[in-house]
């Protein structure tokens, strides 16, 4: 069992890793995409110590190299689920299962995954972000899952226990999983219905559904955290002054806890969270 797993390899995750390493703890960093720094068109020019403005993605890649150079293990993999148990946490990625005493969530914030008409209206009225939480309400009903990879497969396998009437919508993405349910490859135009959702509409078709589960790309920290019961307010994870969530041993840092969405603040968060996690682990002994 690891002492610390850090999910996210951006400024918050990597600086936490560096400070933990210096404190004598070997963290495992697991990261996949690049949060807000991906698709950021301008160069980063307001962060200390860079001779020339850099692309966000380059900055992240430099950070990963820096960490590896210091002997920190950084794995490139997509975390698809996070679970708690008596001794700590189980972190499942597309390829592995890891155990850890503590976890730091530092995945940053992506843009809304499905910004289409009806998405916000039917959130909680047929659209769900969590199969484990809400699958029960759709027993023997018509369920659609939006997704294309390992995360979708994880949610699909859970929902198979609830109903046989399943469909997958890839929303225009290539399907990257071997599945035995009907697949719609077209992009989703809108979600429609009355009080509750009743249809998913694409360019040419309208598909009847009772429930829609979103499992696109890799889940964000906010999704993991909500599934575990972390307090989430205004889209931010709520942490105490020690960067700990309301779940013991689960910490969070960077954009996902809100405040200034800046690299400098994420780096600071990472350092502070590392200190707090070190203290937490010391007390636990």
């Amino acid at each position, binding site marked *: 069992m690891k002492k610390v797993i850090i999910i996210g390899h951006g400024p918050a995750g990597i600086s936490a890793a560096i400070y933990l390493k210096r404190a004598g703890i070997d963290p495992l960093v697991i990261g996949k995409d690049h949060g807000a720094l991906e698709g950021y068109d301008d160069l980063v020019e307001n962060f200390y110590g860079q001779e020339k403005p850099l692309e966000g993605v380059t900055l992240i890649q430099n950070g990963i190299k820096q960490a590896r150079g210091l002997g920190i293990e950084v794995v490139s993999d997509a975390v698809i689920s996070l679970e708690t148990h008596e001794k700590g946490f189980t972190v499942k990625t597309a390829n592995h299962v890891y155990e850890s005493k503590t976890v730091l969530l530092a995945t940053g914030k992506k843009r809304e995954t499905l910004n289409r008409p009806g998405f916000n209206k039917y959130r909680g009225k*047929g659209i769900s972000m*969590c199969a484990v*939480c809400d699958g029960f309400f759709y027993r023997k009903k018509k369920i659609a899952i939006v997704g294309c990879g390992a995360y979708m497969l994880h949610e699909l396998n859970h929902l198979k226990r609830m109903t046989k009437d399943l469909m997958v919508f890839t929303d225009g993405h290539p399907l990257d999983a071997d599945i035995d349910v009907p697949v719609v490859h077209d992009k989703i135009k809108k979600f429609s219905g009355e009080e*509750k959702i009743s249809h998913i509409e694409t360019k040419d078709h309208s598909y009847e559904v009772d429930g829609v589960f979103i499992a696109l790309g890799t889940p964000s920290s906010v999704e993991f955290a909500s599934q575990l*019961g*972390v307090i*989430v*307010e205004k889209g931010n994870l709520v942490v105490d002054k020690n960067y700990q969530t309301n779940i013991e041993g689960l910490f969070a840092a960077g954009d996902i806890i809100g405040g200034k969405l800046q690299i400098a603040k994420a780096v600071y968060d990472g350092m502070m969270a590392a200190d707090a996690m070190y203290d937490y682990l010391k007390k636990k002994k």
Partner: protein
Amino acid sequence: MVFDFTTENFENQVLKSDVPVLVEFWASWCGPCQRVAPILEALDQDVQGLAKVGKLDVDEESKIADEFGVMSIPTIIVFKNGKVDQSTIGVQSKETLRKLLGV
């Protein structure tokens, strides 16, 4: 005391209550709901005499859950004068829940 609301006592305890009532729709198998329990306990201490706090098991009392369109848990609904006043999904802090209650 955090109430356990049921089909039997819902009308008297919730709809006919003369103070605001916060109801958490939950189930024993719902992980996030387990995290709400201590928050409700603390909230209940804070709002004693001003409001009622309780939970309703969606497995046992599915009729009421259906009536209020609960399709995701935890769902938290605040009732005032027998009507739905506020509703929210997911785990919230004690302070936010108190604001929903408006007391």
